[in-house]
């Protein structure tokens, strides 16, 4: 017998979610800051020097978080988009568009930091191997999503078109993830997986996991802030927005 049922659909209204997001984002921002400080401390002062790569391996502490974020944000974005398509809720499309720029940012950072890691270790900034190429395609999917959104004036129609694009693009995410298994790639295999024990020193692993968590908190903070802007913009002709901006 649970009488205190939370009415989740109450927050599906942009007006209520605007208020909720405004209350939530500072907490996520605090968590993101704290985790980043702890993560960077471990990354530079606790984690030992790598036996093979010396200090160069420390790029892992930004490269892995950025890469996994780029994939996870895509999945979450596609889920929101799909939800919007199925249930025709306005907020879903707004959430998907709030996530897209941050996802693109992480995909871009994944490629940049990967390149900066590849040069000293592999001797090249870029190779057309399966992992790198599929990550590049992910960046293009994000950019395509943003371009499509910008090219359609009616935001509700834009949401629908973008949702279809996002859902079709989902097929690329497992390709990125399994590319190092399915093909012979220059990129190394996974250092951390669900089925095996990790193949790295525990302080390295902890530093990496904390940086991953910090990126999650950052992405949530940014998505909440951006969705607030999107809500204000799209609901500009409603009475509550007029009240809110006064």
């Amino acid at each position, binding site marked *: 017998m649970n009488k205190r049922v939370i009415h989740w659909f109450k927050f599906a209204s942009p007006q209520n979610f605007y208020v909720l997001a405004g209350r939530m984002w500072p907490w996520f921002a605090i968590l993101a800051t704290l985790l980043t400080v702890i993560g960077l401390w471990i990354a530079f002062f606790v984690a030992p020097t790598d036996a093979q790569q010396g*200090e*160069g391996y420390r790029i892992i502490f930004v490269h892995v978080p950025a890469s996994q974020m780029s994939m996870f944000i895509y999945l979450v974005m596609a889920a929101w988009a799909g939800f919007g398509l199925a249930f025709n809720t306005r907020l879903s499309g707004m959430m998907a568009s709030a996530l897209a720029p941050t996802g693109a940012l992480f995909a871009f950072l994944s490629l940049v930091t990967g390149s900066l890691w590849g040069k000293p270790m592999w001797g090249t900034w870029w190779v057309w191997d399966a992992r790198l190429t599929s990550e590049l395609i992910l960046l293009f999917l994000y950019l395509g999503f943003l371009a499509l959104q910008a090219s359609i004036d009616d935001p509700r129609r834009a949401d629908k078109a973008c949702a279809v694009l996002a859902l079709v693009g989902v097929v690329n995410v497992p390709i990125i993830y399994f590319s190092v298994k399915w093909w012979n790639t220059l990129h190394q295999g996974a250092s951390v997986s669900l089925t095996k024990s990790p193949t790295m020193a525990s302080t390295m692993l902890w530093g990496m996991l904390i940086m991953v968590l910090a990126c999650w908190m950052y992405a949530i903070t*940014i998505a909440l802030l951006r969705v607030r*802007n999107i809500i204000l913009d799209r609901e500009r002709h409603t009475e509550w927005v007029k009240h809110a901006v006064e």
Partner: protein
Amino acid sequence: MQWNSVSEFFAMGGYAFYVWGSFGSTALMVVAEVLLLRSQRKELLKHLRNELLSERASL
């Protein structure tokens, strides 16, 4: 801790450009995104207030 001096820390065992380049570009993008969102919000609020004022003036 594996650093004997500050300069050794910044040298990153010869990988300074790559390590600091990675962390630096990430920091730069994150700061840029936060600043962009803030200015976006300010512009939006300004715009909406102006819209509201002109709407009231025309009544």
